[in-house]
C-alpha cells in the first residue's frame, strides 16, 4: 500500500466533511463580499463609508426622497430602486450608506480577528515552547504570569484595557499608537487570549519533549532552539491550526463586544460591532441597522467555528475516530469501519 502523509490524510478527511466545506464556502463568500467594498463604492453606491448625507435626497422611482427625515429617521433599504445606492438604507442620522459601511466594517472585523489571533498564537507558541521545554524557573515565571492574566474575566479585562487605551493610546518605547488606532483593539484581544492558547501548548510541549525523536535530536547535538523550532513546532502545527481557526471566531466576537461598548474599534473606523452599537439607539424604529451587522457576525463566526471543528476532526486522531464511528465514513484505504 502506498504510504500517505498525515497532511494528505487530513485533507482527505476534511474533503469528506461536507458541512465544514459548505461553511468554508460561506466564509470565502463573506471574505469576497468585504473585499469587494471599493468596487461597490466606486461603481454602485458612489459614496464612501464615512461620507454623510444628512440633508441630501435620493431619487427613487422618479421621486426625491430624504435620506434622513426631519425627525432623524434614516431611509429604509432601497435595494436596487436607486441603482444600488442605499441598498440597505442609511445607517442613522448621519445618512451614511449602510451597505458600504457593512462591507468596510466587515473588512475591519475580519482583519482585527485574524491579526489579533495571529499575534496571540505567535506569542502563545513562543511562551508555551519555552515553558514546556525548559521547565524549572522559566516555566514557573511564564505560567504564573499567564495564570495572573487568566484570573481576570476576559471581557472585563479587555473592557478595562480598552477604556484606558482608547483615551491615551499606547506608548511603549518606539511603539506609539493613538487611541483611535486599529492596533489598540488588536493588541488588547491578543493580550487577553494569549494565556488561553499558551497553556495547552505548554502541556503539549511537556508531553512531546519526552518522546524518542526529541531524545534522538538531542543526542545528535541539537541545541534547545533547534529542538524547539525544528522538532517540537512541526508536531504542534495541527494543534496550532485548530487553535488559530477557533481563535479568530472568538477574537471577532470579543472585538464586536468591545466595539459595541465603545472601547474597541474607534471612529472613523467602523466594524460590525460599532455598527450594532450605532444602530442600537434606533432599534425600535430601524431594527435592521442592528440586525444586519449582527447577522453578519453570526454567520462569519458560525462559519469559522464549523471550519475549526472540521479541521480538528481532520487533524486530531481522537476526534477522527469519533467522527468516523458516528458517520460511517470509510478509512482512506477504502475499508469501512
Amino acid at each position, binding site marked *: 500500500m502506498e504510504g500517505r502523509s498525515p497532511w494528505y490524510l487530513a485533507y482527505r478527511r476534511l474533503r469528506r466533511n461536507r458541512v465544514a466545506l459548505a461553511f468554508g464556502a460561506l466564509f470565502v463568500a463573506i471574505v469576497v463580499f468585504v473585499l469587494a467594498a471599493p468596487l461597490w463604492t466606486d461603481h454602485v453606491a458612489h459614496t464612501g463609508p464615512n461620507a454623510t448625507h*444628512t440633508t441630501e435626497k435620493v431619487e427613487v422611482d422618479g421621486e426625491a426622497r430624504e435620506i434622513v427625515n426631519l425627525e432623524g429617521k434614516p431611509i429604509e433599504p432601497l435595494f436596487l430602486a436607486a441603482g444600488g445606492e442605499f441598498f440597505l438604507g442609511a445607517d442613522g*442620522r448621519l445618512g451614511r450608506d449602510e451597505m458600504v459601511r457593512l462591507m468596510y466594517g466587515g473588512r475591519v472585523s475580519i482583519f482585527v480577528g485574524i491579526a489579533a489571533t495571529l499575534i496571540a498564537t505567535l506569542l502563545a507558541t513562543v511562551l508555551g515552547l519555552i515553558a514546556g521545554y525548559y521547565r524549572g524557573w522559566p516555566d514557573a515565571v511564564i505560567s504564573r504570569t499567564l495564570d495572573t492574566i487568566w484570573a481576570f474575566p476576559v471581557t472585563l479585562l479587555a473592557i478595562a484595557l480598552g*477604556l484606558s487605551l482608547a483615551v491615551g493610546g499606547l506608548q511603549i518605547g518606539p511603539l506609539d499608537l*493613538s487611541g483611535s488606532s486599529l492596533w489598540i483593539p488588536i493588541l488588547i484581544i491578543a493580550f487577553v487570549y494569549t494565556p488561553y492558547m499558551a497553556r495547552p501548548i505548554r502541556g503539549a510541549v511537556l508531553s512531546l519533549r519526552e518522546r524518542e525523536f526529541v531524545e534522538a535530536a538531542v543526542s545528535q547535538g541539537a541545541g534547545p532552539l533547534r529542538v524547539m523550532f525544528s522538532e517540537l513546532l512541526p508536531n504542534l502545527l495541527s494543534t496550532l491550526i485548530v487553535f488559530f481557526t477557533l481563535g479568530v471566531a472568538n477574537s471577532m466576537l470579543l472585538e464586536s463586544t468591545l466595539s459595541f461598548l465603545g472601547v474597541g474599534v474607534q*471612529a*472613523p473606523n467602523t466594524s460590525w460591532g460599532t455598527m450594532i452599537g450605532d444602530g442600537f439607539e434606533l432599534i*425600535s424604529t430601524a431594527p435592521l441597522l442592528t440586525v444586519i451587522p449582527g447577522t453578519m457576525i453570526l454567520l462569519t463566526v458560525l462559519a469559522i467555528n464549523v471550519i475549526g471543528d472540521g479541521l480538528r476532526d481532520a487533524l486530531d486522531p481522537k476526534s477522527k475516530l469519533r467522527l468516523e464511528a458516528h458517520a460511517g465514513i470509510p478509512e482512506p484505504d477504502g475499508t469501512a469501519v
Partner: protein
Amino acid sequence: MRKLHAALAVLGLVSVALVLSSCGSSSSGKEGGTLTGSYASFPDYLDPALSYSQEGWLAMYNTYLPLLTYKHADGAEGAEVVPALAESLPEISADRKTYKLTLRKGLEYSDGTPVKASDFASTVERVFKISSPGSPFYEGIVGAEEFAKTRTGGIPGIKTDDKTGEITIELTSPRGTFTNELAMLFVALVPPNTPAKNMTTDPIPATGPYEIVESEPGRGWSYERNPQWAKANGEAMPDLPDGHVDKIEISIVRNGATQVNEIERDKTDWMQTIVPADLFNKVKDKYEDTQFRVEHPINLYFFWMNTQQPPFDDLEVRQAVNYALDTAALERIYAGSLSAAHQILPEGVPGHEAFDLYPHDMAKAKAMLEEASPSDREITVWTNNESPSDDAGAYFSDVLGKLGFKAKLKVINGDNYYTVIGNAETPDLDTGFTAWIPDYPNPNGFFQPLLSGESIAPIYNSNFAKMDDPKLNAKVAKLSEEQLGAEQEDEYRALDREYMEKAPWAPFGTNTLSTFVSSEIDLDEVIFNPTMGQDLTSFQFK
C-alpha cells in the same frame, strides 16, 4: 310663580358665580397624594454644597434654600433672581463690592432648629471645608482664599448679626454675577453643626417646602412635606410655592425605554430624564400637550476652532467653516431635539437677539477657503462618544473634508472629554465639539469663561478656541463687574455680534429637554425652570 322665577334667577346667579370663581382659580387639581418619579441615575450628590449637576439641583431646588433663588416660573421669567431666605434682593454699595441682605424672621430648619444669619457664614465656610466644586464662586469674598488654605478662623468678608438678621458680604473686587452666585444651591443655608462631609445618605435638615427623608444612592430617595414650612417658613416666604403633593418618591430606572413604558402605564408619574432619541418622536406625536412637552433649558452647542494656530488662526478660514456648517443637518442628527442657532447667546438668556451672520452656503465657503488658501490642512476634530455628540463630530469632520481639509476624527470617552480638551498639553487641539450649560442665566456665563483671554488656562481650560482679543477682553471684563440691567443687556447683545464676526466658534443650537408625565398629572401646571429643571412644587394630580 314669580317666587319660582325669583328662586330660579337666584340659583342661576349662584351657578354663574360658582363657574366664574372656579375659572379664576389658579388650578383645579387635587391637593395631596404621592408623586412618583424616575431618574436614569442617582444625582452626583444630595448635599447642596457638593452637587454640581442639573439632576442634583432639580432634586434640591425645593428643599435647601439659599438667600436668593430663581423664580418658580418657566422661560425667561424663571431666569429672574428673587429673594428666598433673604427679605429682599441685596443692597449693593456704590463701589459694587459690598452686598447687604437681611434674613427673614422666624425661619426654622425642618428639625426645628432656628435659622440664623450666622448660618450663612458657616455654610460658606463648609463649602470651602468640603472642597466643594462651587468654592471658586465665593473666592472673591474678602479673606475667602486665605480660609480655603487654612480652613480656620472664619471668613472676614462675611459679617452677620443674629439679632437683626443682617448679613454683609465684602468682595475683593466688583463681580456682576454675584447675585446669581448667591442663588446657587452651594450656599443654601444648612445648620451650623452640619458635618463637613458628603451628607447624601444622611439628609441635612431643610428650609424649603419639602425635606428629604430617605436617600439610598443607586436606588432612590423620597421627600415629605417639611413640618416647619406650614408652621413658620411658608408664611415667612409667601412668594415661594407650598407644593401640591404630600410625598415624592424618586427611584432609579436606568433604562430610558422602561421609564417611558412606566409612564405610559401610569405606574410612574414623571421621568426626569429626556425621552430616549428613538422614542422621542413617537412619544411627542402621541402625547404632546397632554402628557409631553419640549422644554428649553439654557445651553449652547458649538464647534470651537483654535484661533491661535493654523489653519484656524485665519479669520477667513473660520468664517468659511461657519458658512459650510448646515444647522439643518445638525437638527436631524439631534432627531428634532435641537433648536438651531448660529450665535453665542441662546434664547432665554438676557441680551439674546436672534441673528445669523453665516447662513449655510457651501459654495461661498469653498470660495472663501480657496482665497484663504491655508497651508496647513491636516486637522483633528475632537468629540466625545456620547450620542449624538459623536455623530455631530463625524458630521463636522465630513463638512471639513468637503471643504478641502484632511480631517481626522478623534472620539474620546465623555467622562473625561473636557479634561482632555481643556489641557494645553494635549496635542492637535485644532477644533472640536462642546456643549455648554452655564451655571446661571447670565450672559456673562458665556463670554467670560468661554471667550475671554483671561480664561485661557493650561489645565481645565474652558476657552477652547483660545480666543484672546484685547478689545473684546476689555469689554467682557467691564461687563463682568456690572450688575445686569437694560444697558448691560444691550452691550451683551452687541458683544454677541462682535464675537460672531470674529468667528471663534461655529455654534449650531441649543438642545431641548422634555417633560413627560402620566395621564394623572396636570401637565399645564408643571413648571420648567430653565436653570433648575422641573419644579417639583408645581406637580399636581388632576
